[in-house]
């Protein structure tokens, strides 16, 4: 009994970590493309791990099959949704974020004299 609880706890917390990372990415990243990038990767993985934890905790085959289908579906659709958003943004002329030129020169100077 303790083993399954440990597995469930491990999977769930690890998955939660990735979900938190995804949300931090969504909030902190400078422009849409990096945010979409964060969501499509980290969120999908985080969700997958937590779903695995739920499947292990449920123990019944029926529930695990449904969760498997759910994860397979989200594995396909979540990145595509992020792709569609990014594409619609690029067609709308949302520019990607660049380090602005002055900042880049300062950075190069600091790297030279290190």
């Amino acid at each position, binding site marked *: 009994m303790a083993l399954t609880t440990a597995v469930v706890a491990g999977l769930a917390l690890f998955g939660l970590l990735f979900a938190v990372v995804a949300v931090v990415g969504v909030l902190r990243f400078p422009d849409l493309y990096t945010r979409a990038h964060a969501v499509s990767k980290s969120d999908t993985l985080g969700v997958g791990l937590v779903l695995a934890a739920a499947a292990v905790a449920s123990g019944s085959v029926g529930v695990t099959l449904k969760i498997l289908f759910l994860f397979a*579906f989200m594995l*396909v659709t979540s990145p*595509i949704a992020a792709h*569609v958003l990014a*594409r619609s943004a690029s*067609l709308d002329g949302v520019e990607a974020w660049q380090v602005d030129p002055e900042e880049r020169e300062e950075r190069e100077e600091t790297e030279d004299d290190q």
Partner: protein
Amino acid sequence: MSALALELTLLGLLVLTAALTAVIRDVLAATVVFAVYSLVLSLVWILLRAPDVALTEAAVGAGVVTVLLVATIAKTSRPTDHAELSVRWPSLAVIGVFAVGIVTTLPSLPAIGDPTAPIHQHLGTYYLETAPAETGVSNIVTAILAAYRAFDTFGEVVVVFGAGIGLLVVLRQSGITLQPTTGSTPSTTDPGLEPSTTDPHGESSTTDLGREPSVITTTAIRYIVPFVALFGLYIAFHGAKTAGGGFQGGVVVAASVVLVAFGFGIESTRRWLNDTVLTAITAGGVAAVVAIGLGAMALGGRFLEYTVYPIPKATTYGIELVELGIGATVTGIVLVFFFALVGNAETPPGESSPTHTEESK
């Protein structure tokens, strides 16, 4: 303890999203926050052990209302990009007094979940005990909906049907009809939108949205649509055994057609699903429910009295057929909503209305 914590955080988030929708000035940002509100609400229904209501909220919130709201916003106003907050204090004060007034009456209600509350005594227990046996259907909510209150559900189907017709009538005033533009007439002279030249074999080179859909989306949609449609039918068919029913299944099936519309161009989908098919589905659903009802009267029973039919387990089949009738009607009507409000891609709003000025609010 943890269940209570989940319930309180969900209710907190529910109030937060509702309040945020209220204070955000930009209408599109408010609609997006309203979509999150609908997600949280569906979770609250699950915690209150109402799977049917949660499923309907899911189908409605994510499937119909948000898409229609965003469609109307994109067609009417030019939302500002910076969303500032603004609060109208006088109306807040008046409504605050109103809310406090109601809250003071709450102590007279029984505590939440109290088994001795009157709702669990009289009628509720009757249905819980007799419904499964009498109707042979394990989902008691569907049993009540389609058997005991079949006439009311019939009224609900007619309301949905009426809404579809009402929307078409309203939109006809502004020159928008469901007629697919036959042939490949260039959509508008506006240079911005390339004319949607449809090749002879019907595959339009550029979609009527004026943009080539990315290969990723079309192939993904091509593989996903059958699952979405199949799952919608499963919900509609299986409404008697597990949570689900005609309405929720109908919305999911309609969502699969919306996917096709966005994957392969609204124009070609409308030509595939032209008016005869749409009217057949919607009218067919309502006609099915009426036929079952009148058939019962023909056999000497009352309107929609399934037990009169000679076949064994008549009520179960009656319920499932009525649910399918609802499903068909709802699929047709949601598609009418979609094609009417979203579908007329050829005439971007600027052109069709004479009085529309360029910098409209």
